[in-house]
């Protein structure tokens, strides 16, 4: 068939073959095509759990009677809670809660057993860090029935008066920092980190790759300028862009979503600088690895995906298996999310902040070291 106006299967096939050849030549794209589905599959299916169990709790036990112990073992057996720490004062437990070291604080007060047996309805205090309502909602919802079941077990024989219609325990639940479990309080500060990760990594990776792709990098390097001047000069404008993004998100958080801003904004700005720097370092490193802008884009996605899924932005961090948590601990977004929520919602101060911040800084330094080594090699 030599008619040009007729749809030609031979020509169609020629184009298909050409696409496959090009696909095979572009190793990075090919790796991404295989890598992204595998990564997604592993992350989604194994790591993500929207009904988290074994959440860390600190307990304050001032009463050692049998009923107190019965309640603790019932909580543990529910698999919702894992007692990682026993402290002697409520203040200590609350500090651990504020630092995000535990998700719950359970306080069994003095004379709990005595008051219970007397029918005085003793108080059982459970405080939860509700900065991530997704993690605390399940366990808090299940608490009353867990306690009732525990009481019913004991409410036999002489103690059957405990199995009255009204619960014999005065359960007080404090969902701290976000008592109404408003998801915006969690999502909007989290978005600050997500938006910064995406744009900072992508923009720098693209900006430097573009310079190389279009040949202007060669021109730059033939002028009397140092590679470090080029690097820093290219990065500085984006730090400003990052701060503009931050300002926009915080304004929206405050005026559109009424997210409380409890902590110090200056502290948040300082913390954000470290995070932006770490993200830019990732972008620079990608630009030294990528051969063209498309590859830089794909690498950004490759980094972005685990950042969103494993950092605790989309799913409760503590709901993930330990290996996934360990991976998440490496990512700067994980720590930044804790920092932003900590500062904005909990009013964390500098002491609490340092615990997370150094991990972001360390990540940035390691990544930048890779970039510097790679950059030297691409010069010659």
């Amino acid at each position, binding site marked *: 068939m030599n008619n040009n106006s007729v749809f030609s299967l031979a020509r169609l096939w020629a184009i298909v073959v050409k696409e496959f050849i090009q696909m095979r030549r572009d190793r990075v794209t090919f790796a991404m095509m295989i890598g992204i589905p595998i990564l997604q599959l592993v992350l989604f299916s194994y790591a993500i759990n929207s009904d988290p169990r074994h959440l860390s709790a600190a307990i304050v036990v001032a009463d050692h009677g049998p009923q107190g112990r019965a309640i603790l073992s019932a909580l543990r057996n529910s698999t919702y809670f894992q007692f990682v720490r026993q402290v002697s004062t409520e203040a200590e437990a609350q500090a651990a809660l504020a630092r995000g070291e535990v998700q719950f604080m359970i306080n069994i007060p003095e004379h709990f057993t005595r008051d219970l047996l007397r029918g005085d309805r003793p108080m059982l205090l459970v405080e939860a860090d509700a900065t991530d309502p997704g993690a605390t909602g399940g366990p808090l919802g299940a608490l009353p029935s867990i306690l009732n079941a525990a009481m019913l077990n004991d409410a036999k024989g002489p103690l059957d008066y405990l199995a009255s219609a009204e619960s014999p325990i005065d359960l007080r639940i404090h969902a701290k920092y976000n008592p109404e479990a408003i998801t915006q309080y969690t999502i909007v500060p989290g978005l600050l980190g997500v938006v910064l990760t995406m744009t900072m990594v992508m923009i720098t990776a693209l900006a430097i790759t573009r310079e190389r792709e279009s040949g202007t990098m060669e021109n730059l390097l*033939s*002028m*009397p300028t140092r590679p470090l001047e080029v690097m820093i000069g290219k990065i500085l404008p984006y730090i400003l862009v990052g701060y503009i993004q931050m300002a926009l998100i915080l304004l929206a958080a405050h005026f559109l979503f009424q997210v409380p801003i409890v902590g110090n904004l200056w502290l948040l700005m300082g913390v954000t600088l470290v995070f932006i720097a770490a993200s830019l370092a990732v972008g620079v490193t990608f630009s030294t690895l990528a051969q063209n802008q498309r590859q830089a884009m794909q690498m950004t996605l490759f980094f972005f995906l685990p950042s969103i899924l494993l950092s605790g932005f989309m799913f409760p961090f503590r709901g993930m298996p330990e290996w996934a948590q360990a991976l998440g601990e490496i990512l700067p977004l994980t720590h930044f999310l804790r920092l932003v929520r900590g500062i904005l919602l909990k009013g964390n101060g500098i002491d609490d902040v340092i615990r997370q911040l150094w991990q972001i800084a360390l990540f940035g330094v390691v990544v930048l070291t890779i970039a510097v080594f790679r950059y030297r090699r691409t010069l*010659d």
Partner: protein
Amino acid sequence: MTDELAIDVKGMTKRFGKLTAVDHVDLQVRKGEVCGFLGPNGSGKTTFIRMLCGLLRADEGSGQCLGHDVIKDSETIKRQVGYMTQKFSFWEDLTIEENLDFVARMYSLKNRRETVKQSLERLGLSARKDQLAGQLSGGWKQRLALAACLIHEPQLLLLDEPTAGVDPIARRDFWKEIHQLAGQGLTFLIATHYMDEAERCHRLAFIANGKLLTVGTVSDVVENSHLTTWAVDGPDLLQLADKLQALPGVEQAVPFGGILHISGPDQAALEQAIAPFRTSQYHWKQVPAGLEDVFIHLMEQTKGAPSK
């Protein structure tokens, strides 16, 4: 032109893995000289130029460029050299003026604004100064690149195929500009593929497979090739070319319009080969070998070795 040397290097060598891109090249260029740098694609021209301006570190070699050590003082040399890349490498999303201003800042020039203004005027770019570089035609892009290379008043210009994709009128203007600048004492090393441009150079250096094959004026190069060329005019020249090409002593049989150029390095062998065809139907005439004939002759000689 003086006898002072702007470029005087020996044994310049650059290897990329197993490939030796530039293999012990010696080159001397006098101040105020326009030196043409010829060679097939992938012969090492760009690599050699990049070594001179400090973009690549030479693996071996020594010498001086503008009186500075070519290996140790590459940063000093950078400031006094203008390098024009093969591909247009200015920022397409900046205007002409912004591009020039940026370059002026990179060289920390005093009186930056005045310098940029003068540079725009001298190359006739003033009217277009607010145009984006990406929207310029090939000829204007090349003017911009030249203006940018000259802005820090270099003493040596390294131009890597500066006129690729530029129309003949713009090319002529460009060469006029170059000769004017050379008259003012600037030195040029210009890589090119165009024979008419090569003929405009004071001297030529020919490189192939990383090795320098010959250096000299146009007539030196032609003479040193010892190439004999005959021009033949007549019917069915392409068939004649095929027949002649197969004969010993004939290196090239190349059509030039309606005429065929037959060349070979051995005069006796060439004349013996064409003797049977010297019939009345053809009109034969011995002509001086052209630069292109010599160029192809030199390339033929280096054939066999990989060209990249």
